[in-house]
């Protein structure tokens, strides 16, 4: 390698998530500066880069609720050597998957046409808008995921610990206290 200090290139994104996991990532506070010595960010809400280039690591928050999510996930899988599902939504579908027992047609109809206060409603059909999937899926239903980081959101310490393990070449392990489900 040309330089030993070559930084790891990292991309992150939020699919069907609430940005809570990204907020938790920011919660590592001043350790962010330490992290930035080791990594540089590619596509990420932190950089506003729109498309992912070749990366060492991809971190994804949120599951899959629409066609665009699937496209972004595939772009990440193609570009990143290692892909991490971060948070309950990415790992299991999480909160958005609560809609899975409803018929998506009924959902759209209720929200856009028959709900209270709606007159002359219609279901948006602009091709610019991604269509929702009939059910919300976790990431590993569509591509291979290398690591799962559970929690809703995973605590900042867990993310920090996890990234350190990964950067140092250790298989990440989350010990007692770092796995939270609420």
């Amino acid at each position, binding site marked *: 390698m040309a330089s030993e200090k070559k930084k790891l290139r990292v991309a992150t994104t939020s699919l069907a998530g609430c940005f809570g996991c990204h907020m938790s990532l920011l919660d590592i506070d001043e350790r962010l500066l330490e992290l930035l010595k080791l990594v540089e960010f590619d596509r990420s809400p932190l950089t506003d880069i729109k498309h992912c280039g070749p990366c060492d690591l991809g971190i994804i928050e949120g599951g899959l609720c629409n*066609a665009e999510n*699937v496209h972004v996930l*595939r772009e990440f*899988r*193609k570009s990143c050597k290692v892909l991490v599902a971060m948070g309950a939504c990415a790992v299991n579908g999480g909160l958005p998957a609560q809609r899975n027992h409803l*018929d*998506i*047609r009924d959902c*759209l*109809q209720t929200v856009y046409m028959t709900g209270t206060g709606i007159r002359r409603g219609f*279901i*948006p*059909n602009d*091709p*610019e808008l*991604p*269509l*929702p*999937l*009939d*059910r919300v*899926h976790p990431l*590993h*239903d*569509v*591509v*291979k995921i290398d690591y799962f980081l559970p929690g809703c959101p995973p605590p900042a310490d867990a993310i920090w610990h996890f990234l350190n393990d990964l950067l140092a070449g250790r298989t990440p392990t989350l010990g007692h206290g770092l796995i939270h489900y609420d």
Partner: protein
Amino acid sequence: MSRDLSAILARHQHDPLRLVQILRDVVEEHGFISPGTITTLAERLSLPRGRVEGVAGFYAFFPTENAGRYRVLFSDNITDRMAGSVELRQRMLEAFQVRDGEVSRDGLVSIGTTSCTGLCDQGPAMLVNGRAIPRLTRARIGSISAMIHGQAPLDTWPANLFDIHTHIERKDLLLSTPLAAGAAIDAAIARGPDATVAQVKASNLRGRGGAGFTTGVKWEMCRAAPGEAHYVVCNADEGEPGTFKDRVLLSDYADLVFEGMTVAAFAVGAKRGFLYLRAEYPFLLAPLEATLAERRKAGLLGKSIRGVADFDFDIEIHVGAGAYVCGEESALIESLEGKRGIPRNRPPYPVTSGYLQQPTVVNNVETLAKAAFVVMHGADWLRVRGTGRSAGTKVLSVSGDVARPGIYELPFGATVREVLDLCGATDVQAVQVGGPSGMLLSRSEQHRRIMFEDVPSAGAFMVFDDSRDILQVLENFASFFAHESCGFCTPCRVGTALQRRMLSALAKGYGTRRDLKDLARVAKVMKASSHCGLGATAGNAALDALEKFKPAFEKRLGTLEVMPTFDLDRSLAPAREVTGRDDDEAHLSHEEEE
């Protein structure tokens, strides 16, 4: 409404222990349990409302919303499916223009599925408002649909529709020994309780309900356990798909089973006994009550039985409400106490802390029937048949691809081949012994023997010929466990759901090699860490199949290491439908575009 409730409550002496029985009557009379009913029952029984609601919500046969005037449930065991139940259900759904599991718009009917109803030798079967109808054909479905359309009350339906046949194809020790009612009781009295227990112990009789615990040891421990009262429970929950031998024992040998319970009561010093009968067998209820009444009249139940002062014993029948887990003895006891059927922590075991925390013997129907003869004829009666560690015979329920489905009693040690020959099975691909929680055997294992030392069985013996798809069999088993998991512990609640998802994806051709590994991993986690036997055995069939039927999986695997586990494009179809879109962006490719 609340006047009816008063009558039901009075019938059950306002006893909260009888809550499951009370709710059964409510469903019988009202069709479902409304929130208002739950509130009233809670008040009148002085129970927290959540307690009543929890019990109502636990059991499959307690609908808490209107389920239609006719609630039709197709038995969904793999043997029903093999006999054509899916097509028949589809016909009926179309005839009433109703979706699976939903109530028709006019509130007339709901059509859904239920776990195996124990009529596998005369399937496909269904329950209509709890009443069993076997041997379904297109013609039967046609006339049933017509009667529902015409809103004919169930009591006016032709009686032969409900006829349950008994097919006993081979009798051995148990089924051919005659019983004079009271003879075993007399033998026990003559010998005294301690010697009676000793005799059952000496016979080496082991439980026929699954676990195979030595019956005499169980009775001895119960007898020795201190308590205010002792109880005897006959486990007639028979929920393991493919098992129907207890049904036949209770229809044709009821006296013998009650004789066994009474002997057990004498041996352990019990005054009260329960028969926990699965709800799927309502047709047994009246004949069993009649047998009990006769036995009371003959002095074989009640006070001072056979003139022995202090030998008081009577039997109550409790009916379940559609929960496989209630066959697990501690869950069964919870259910007997009017609670949700969630298995207890064990130890303590029922023998020291069972019904109302008192010493309780729980035995399978077949075990008790055999115990009666052991007490009557001596320990050797049983030991003339069987093997060293499996004394006597086993009653098998044979179903699936065989010429003569039914009941076969064989000595322990009989080979799978012998059973297959007897029942007329050809082109055998696989046999599932002991039900979905048991063992899956391949064609090459016909030398294996039915006995505790090799292939134990609680009684089910389902045969699949070469035309069957093993993955569909596994998918059916996995759905059964996912549906029946009581949800108390995470390995089973989540594991059974994962297993069902993985198997259904694999069966549809959306699986990869990695999924095979994951499937095995989930099965092992369930086995190692579940709270009760349901979760511990829920992965058995999949593990067996991964070992013995690997090509059945492999031929459906994609070549990629990972591929989507569902049809991506189809999953956009509902949204396409309501938006009317069909542009490029409204579609997804299954494999990634380069």
